């Protein structure tokens, strides 16, 4: 219980860090800390498999993509501490909304805790086989529907990103035929001071 409270506090602190950090990359780092503390919370709640998958997928894969994009976009920009807040009054609204959500969650948790018995977990709860049987048993249809939705999203992204850009249509498999290979091109972009890092070929 004490460890749960400590890690919960760490998760909340990291979440506050996400919204208060001025540099986007620092926000991503706080988010990674937050996701890792959530994983530990799952483990203290007898769901070790979910905790590990949380680290493996969210912290280990999804956030790498975030870091990738933000690291490239903000490679040269340093936030100016004297710069005024672009969204005026957001702090008050955020705190207000946070208090309301916390109150609702506390009420819900209180209502749930009244009826539940935390010591009556079935054997093997949260383990790999229990998790797999739930996922491929009662929740098979929602699980497959999610997979289909994600597949649709991937196809959509591919269609959108290749539709209108001639440069993207060139087959990347024949670099020998081109005077400039892709690797060479990237280093040229990096050498050019006007473009900056990751300027690409556009």
């Amino acid at each position, binding site marked *: 219980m004490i460890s749960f409270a400590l890690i919960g506090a760490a998760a909340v602190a990291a979440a506050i860090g996400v919204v208060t950090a001025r540099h986007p990359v620092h926000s991503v780092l706080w988010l990674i800390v937050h996701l890792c503390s959530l994983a530990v919370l799952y483990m203290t709640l007898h769901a070790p*498999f979910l905790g590990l998958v949380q680290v493996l997928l969210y*912290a280990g894969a999804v956030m790498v993509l975030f*870091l*990738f994009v933000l690291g490239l976009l903000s*490679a040269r920009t340093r936030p100016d501490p004297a710069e005024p807040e672009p969204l005026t009054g957001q702090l008050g609204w955020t705190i207000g909304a946070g208090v309301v959500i916390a109150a609702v969650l506390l009420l819900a948790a209180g209502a749930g805790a009244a009826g539940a018995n935390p010591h009556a977990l079935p054997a093997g709860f949260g383990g790999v086989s229990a998790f797999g049987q739930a996922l491929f048993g009662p929740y098979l249809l929602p699980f497959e529907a999610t997979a289909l939705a994600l597949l649709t999203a991937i196809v959509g992204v591919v269609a959108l990103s290749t539709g209108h850009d001639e440069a993207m249509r060139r087959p990347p498999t024949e670099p020998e035929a081109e005077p400039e290979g892709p690797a060479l091109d990237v280093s040229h972009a990096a050498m050019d001071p006007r473009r900056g890092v990751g300027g690409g070929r556009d």
Partner: protein
Amino acid sequence: MNGMSLGYVLVRSVILIVLLMSAFAYFMVMERKVIGYFQLRWGPVRVGPWGLLQPLADALKMLAKEDAQPLAADGLVFHVAPALTLFVALAAFAVIPLGPALHIGGFLLPLSIANPSTGLLFVLAVASLGVYGISLGGWASQSKYALLGSLRASAQMVSYELALGMAVISAVVLGGSLSLPRLVAQQSLHTWAFIPDILGFVIFVICSVAETNRAPFDLAEAEGELVAGFHTEYSGFRFASFVMAEYINMFTLSALGALLFLGGWNGPFGLGPSVWWLLTKMALYLFLFIWIRVTFPRIRYDRLMQFGWKVLVPIGFLNLIWISVFVVGGGWR
């Protein structure tokens, strides 16, 4: 002693860290010697007899060097990145069992820090965090070479993690467990896992070279194009942390390869279990790392990504289907 008290775990952790560090130091010497012999030269011979004190000299040099930091660098992230890389590398080894627990005069010595039932998943989850040290180190340096190197490294590591996962899953399906000791026990009952799962083993070996960013997949630090990649701006002990993490990751992956595919601590031809078998297999696996490094030229970056996504991942899926058919059709049982 039940092997679970906090103090005992701490003592074993310290011993493991010391062991890993000294293994790193002498593996470095071995690598330089072996590469030397491959290239018809001597390797390090000057410091100590047969060059054996070379790691001490290197350590002193690293500790005494100036801890330089670029002016534009992001201070905190620049300092955290090497520590994070090394921490993740050491933490992943914590659940690797080196052998069955030893009984020394009624004193139980388990040969891993922890033995969770999902130990394999723990290794993969922790190892997947290793990419942050590299990408953050490159980003925080605020230098073009470092940023490009770290982007290459993280794209490569994330891509090859998928094929590596496929190979690992095939071994898991075959053994029917996520616990490393149980997977080894399954192999001692039947045959070593690489016999039905040879494709999985080959994919695992290739991916382990790519995951540790070693030649011929060391595009992240291709010195001809990127100076030294993500650690260009690092010096002294922070630089050493990156190198140490790379080698400790090699140890972890070689131990994992031996445990998953090569029968773990079981001897060949039905010989009994021993820690030494596992260490021998790890040593052979590490020698293979060096052999690959001196034999193959560095491959081009676009070829590397294509090879990962268009060759290894599909073969990994097909192999997984074959192993599933093997297991459903009776398999080892």
